[in-house]
């Protein structure tokens, strides 16, 4: 229904005000048709706002939850599988650092180019004449967990409010922000599971069979490690739904012309008698959150 919203035969578009009929109760006649569920204090049709609000909510929270799950499982999976032990040969380090220096146009970019060229030369030499080359460790675990702890040290709402005000908000910006604040949870889950799976015999067998460790990680370990996300994903969507409606209730999230449930509910503070502007979107919101929670719990039982 959320996807079909623009094609539904609704009598009123969601951001058009019917100023002659402000804050009318359900089943009142408007200027061009029936307001099935009434209008809000700005004269917008509640039914249309509900439908388009569902569209906003779904189009914002679903991608955010999936992106966060993807990012979290990749980061958490890498952190759990390799820990801090992954090592990278020094020439590659040189190549990366030099490229970065050159790419960011730091003073004397030729230094960066030179370092990168040195790295390439070392790689070519190593390919021509195989011999052990020194390696430096890449602390994947420390980086991922440090980032997760940093993002977790402040409640999500405060962080989102602070950044959303600063960087100016559009729908993609809010999506990125929600993803950024939601990934640490799934990363922790996947990392914990990966720490257990890493020690199982089939991983050892894959190592013994001579597969490269990247391949084992992607094809053998990761599909098992992301199992907890099957439970966590509906819960994460529910949490994001609540967060999104809270933001638009506070008037911080999306621009005012985007229809959303939270904004509709905030109308009741100006018009305490208009119960339908609170009851209907609240019912939608609570029903979706409850059903998502139930979905998560049933999956938890089936695991």
């Amino acid at each position, binding site marked *: 229904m959320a996807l079909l919203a623009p094609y539904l035969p609704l009598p009123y578009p969601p951001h058009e005000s019917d100023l002659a009929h402000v804050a009318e109760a359900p089943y009142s006649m408007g200027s061009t048709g029936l307001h099935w569920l009434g209008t809000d204090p700005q004269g917008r049709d509640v039914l249309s706002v509900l439908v388009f609000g569902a569209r906003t909510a779904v189009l914002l929270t679903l991608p955010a939850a999936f992106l966060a799950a993807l990012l979290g499982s990749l980061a958490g999976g890498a952190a759990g599988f390799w820990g801090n032990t992954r090592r990278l040969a020094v020439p590659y380090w040189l190549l990366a650092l030099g490229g970065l220096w050159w790419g960011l146009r730091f003073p004397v970019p030729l230094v960066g180019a030179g370092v990168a060229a040195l790295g390439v030369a070392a790689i070519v030499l190593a390919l021509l004449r195989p011999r052990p080359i020194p390696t430096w460790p890449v602390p994947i675990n420390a980086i991922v967990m440090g980032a997760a702890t940093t993002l977790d040290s*402040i409640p999500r709402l405060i962080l989102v*409010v*602070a950044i959303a005000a*600063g960087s100016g908000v559009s729908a993609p910006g809010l999506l990125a922000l929600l993803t950024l604040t939601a990934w640490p949870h799934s990363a922790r889950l996947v990392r914990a599971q990966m720490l257990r799976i890493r020690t199982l015999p089939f991983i050892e067998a894959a190592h013994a069979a001579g597969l490269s460790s990247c391949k084992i990680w992607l094809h053998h370990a990761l599909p098992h490690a992301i199992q907890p996300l099957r439970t966590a994903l509906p819960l994460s969507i529910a949490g994001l739904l609540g967060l999104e409606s809270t933001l638009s*209730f506070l008037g911080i999230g999306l621009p005012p012309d985007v229809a959303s449930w*939270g904004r509709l509910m905030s109308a*009741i*503070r100006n018009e305490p008698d208009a119960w339908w502007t609170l009851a209907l979107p*609240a019912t939608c919101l*609570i029903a979706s959150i409850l059903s998502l929670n139930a979905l998560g719990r049933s999956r938890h039982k089936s695991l």
Partner: protein
Amino acid sequence: MVWPLLRRLFRTVLAVWALASSVFLLSRHDANTATLLFLPDSSESVATGNGNAADYAAAQRAVQHRLGLDLPLFYASQQPNAPANTAQWRWNGTQNQYHRWMVRLLHGDLGTSFRTAQPVTTRMCSALGFTLPLTGTAALLAVLTALALARRLAAKPWWQHPVRAALVAVHALPLFVLALLLLLTFANPAVVAWFPAYGLDQLAADSDNWSRTQTYLLHLVLPVAALTLAALPELTLQLDAALTQELRTDYATTARAKGLAEGAVIRHHALRNALLPTLTQVAELLPAMVAGAVVVEVVFALPGMGRLLADAAAGRDYPVLVGGVLLTGAARLLALLLADLLYFWADPRIRWQS
């Protein structure tokens, strides 16, 4: 005991510093908006054509200078239109906004608000005077109620199923819906108007000391109830699950075999063990209450910390926002300390090791 705690505190300080810095740096990208908001009348006069555009630009520069926004943002900055093949980075030295902010922060000065030109510290202190009683009472009430409720739930009385279902349902409600429902039920002349909905700002008008206290308490009832109800389900369900697990262990069976009543088994044997996993959650309560205060204070129109933050976010008052982030970080630090103290009290193994 001391070293791990110190290490964790240090890590949290680092994390809060990183977050506050990134919010600071991100926000200064559109500092121009802040100055525009500072000069609304001038922008109107330019738009209508009465004012002189040069005058307006000068006024804008003056405001930027006063707010310290004319300095470069960071130690190094990228020059936007430098010719190719030359260095695009310029070193700004210590004369930059970030350095000034850090130095002032270390002296305990959070800067001045863009909107009201008051020091942020003053505004936050007066706001905290409203918020601390609110969140403190709510946290205390939530913990005590959760303890009492979980203890009775674990004894499996006949009312356990409806109460559990209600807890799960309340848990699903976003806090602002909960607060709105409370507001529209108990402060609505159409239903029951037991409590006042708005107007704590005008408290000073009341002359009598006693009646002022009374009004204050009446105003606080609904917000405290909303915050408590929001925090209660998670705590209770967690503690309940832990208690149920502990009651299945061997030592609980032994206690029952000694002839102890179920209530005594729960109170003297299982409760302290079940508390351990819940203590972390109690510590989480303190920062969560700050976030909850944002919603509750907006709904009930209380002049507290949360409303200050929400207004600052809506009005792009960045110094106040950064101050709010720092304050929440401080709440997290306190919560960490509190959690470790609670563990110290609840778990004798930790006490004896150190």
